[in-house]
């Protein structure tokens, strides 16, 4: 397995874990917040897509964010410059449903993976212009690490909600 094949493998592995959890959730799970200012699973999931959508541009030589070019911000009812967190400020009836949110993640990944697999390996050490200096390889690792950290959070929030609901039911 060369470096690019390996990177594609770990990205797919992480995404399969994310989708497995998301596909088991209800709409109520998606919007639940552990505290008044805590991020919901819905906002975190959109954020995962936004990070990949934006950072893959410089890393993979792409030109447009799908968020804007395919109108995902409109479909999800969020601002053009939103990073996912606006989800928690939407009224319950305005919040996009889980399928729409998963479709955004799939659209972004559907572009990232083929571009990654087609990329020559000598591009990995090239610097990506942006807010922080990172090489293409580091940017790809950053996208992966972001998804994994947020995936951990999604998993924890889901478990916490289930545990709290279970203890509430027990005390009734």
């Amino acid at each position: 397995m060369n470096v690019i094949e390996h990177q594609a493998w770990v990205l797919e592995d992480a995404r399969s874990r994310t989708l497995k959890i998301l596909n088991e959730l209800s709409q109520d799970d998606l919007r639940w917040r552990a505290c008044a200012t805590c991020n919901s699973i819905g906002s975190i999931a959109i954020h995962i897509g936004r990070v990949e959508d934006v950072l893959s541009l410089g890393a993979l030589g792409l030109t447009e964010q799908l968020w804007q070019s395919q109108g995902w911000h409109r479909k999800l009812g969020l601002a053009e410059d939103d990073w996912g967190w606006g989800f928690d400020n939407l009224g319950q009836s305005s919040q996009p449903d889980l399928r729409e949110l998963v479709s955004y993640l799939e659209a972004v990944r559907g572009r990232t993976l083929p571009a990654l697999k087609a990329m020559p390996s000598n591009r990995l050490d090239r610097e990506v212009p942006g807010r922080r200096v990172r090489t293409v390889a580091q940017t790809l690792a950053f996208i992966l690490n972001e998804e994994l950290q947020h995936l951990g959070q999604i998993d924890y929030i889901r478990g916490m909600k289930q545990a709290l609901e279970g203890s509430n039911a027990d005390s009734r």
Partner: protein
Amino acid sequence: MDFKEGTLWSLDRAKGFLHRSLDGLTQQQAAWRACGNCNSIASMVIHLGRVEDTWTHRILGGKDIWETDGWAQKFGLPIEDRGWTFDKQSAQEQKPLSELVSYYEATHRLLVEFIEKLPAERLAESPQNPMNLTVEQIFSHIVIEESQHVGQIDYLKGMQNSKAS
């Protein structure tokens, strides 16, 4: 950047993120549980060390430093523990967060040195392990597991800060 460099970069980033999340935490915050059976930050710090220690020794052979360097004994935890028993200890039994981090630091140094010295041709080997992973996949598995728990620790810190304000 080759595979080993990428792994080391990701591990270093996870470690840096962990330290930023732990910075300024009190012992009470580290031991706090968001629900009756939710894992505390402290238990996850031990678990991170246990993950690195166990997987490193699955490749290297030999026993975990958890046992050989007496960490289990120092923390008053069972040899077979993966970190989660910490939350069952009383506040008096629980060791300070700084000591728990020392165990993680020790396993992290061991893992990093091991990766640095490992010849690239060994990455495809399949040492005996319950998940049938190659060495390369084991390193990725450690990054996957570590990044997820570091994200959880950061969330729990934010949650407590939010409740306090």
